């Protein structure tokens, strides 16, 4: 009798735990703009107009960005905000490819990474004509279109 009682208690505890776990996840997925807190709104401000049209899984990804944002230095936070809109407009396929290549980039040898950073800094500071020239010379690095800084 006592065993059944304990078993029932454990079963109820496990079910409640599972429900609460998934309920939190579901709740996070379906957040309209109005329900975001001030910090989240501040980070995701560039997406304010588009937010309610985003799919639940896109919102979840964006909320993850808002979660990681305060851990970054100011200059990186600015970059995140500048790039949020274009990021949200990329297709899921493009974003997934970008994530894979970002991980690949991180596994490059330090000198390769540094070389690439240097080239990109030069590209950013160059005139439009020079950037066009660089894109023609190194499309694999600078792409074929003038992307945001």
């Amino acid at each position, binding site marked *: 009798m006592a065993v059944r009682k304990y078993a029932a208690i454990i079963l109820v505890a496990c079910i409640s735990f599972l429900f609460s776990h998934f309920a939190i996840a579901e709740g996070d997925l379906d957040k309209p703009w109005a329900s975001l807190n001030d910090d989240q709104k501040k980070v995701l401000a560039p997406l304010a107009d588009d937010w309610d049209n985003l799919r639940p899984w896109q919102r979840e990804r964006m909320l993850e960005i808002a979660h990681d944002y305060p851990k970054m230095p100011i200059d990186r936070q600015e970059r995140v905000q500048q790039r949020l809109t274009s990021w949200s407009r990329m297709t899921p396929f493009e974003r997934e490819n970008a994530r894979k290549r970002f991980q690949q980039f991180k596994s490059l040898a330090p000198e390769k990474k540094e070389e690439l950073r240097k080239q*990109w800094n030069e590209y950013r500071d160059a005139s439009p004509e020079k950037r066009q020239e660089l894109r023609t010379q190194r499309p694999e*690095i600078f792409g074929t279109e003038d992307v945001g800084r």
Partner: protein
Amino acid sequence: MKVETENQQAELRDQALAERIASLLDEQASNIDARIASKLNYASQQALANMASPSSGMVISQNGVIKLFGNYWHQHRLLVTLMMCGLGLLALLAMQNIANQEDAEKGDAYLLASDLPPEVYSNEGFGTWLSENTQQ
């Protein structure tokens, strides 16, 4: 010698008490209601049958330790199953937390804050360049 005599007297007293208890129980048992006697008889048969049944369906229960566990398993299988499920669930959540920690620098925020714009990472040509340079 004196101690031995005292012990013997104590044993005799205990025996007399036990006989008295047994006779009282017998007396009460003979007066018991037939319906209750039938129920008690049934319960005792059930208890004996449970004791006689194998402690577990496990063939490997010849080993003493496993048999001990087998007995426990047989008697509390629901509780043990639920405990195992609970432990499995906890292990899963712990692994998820570890994976989340490992992913700490893998979030989209870090990609957006990277030295290169996200469009570069979605560029096929850059993917090829990365593959070539990662292998080197």
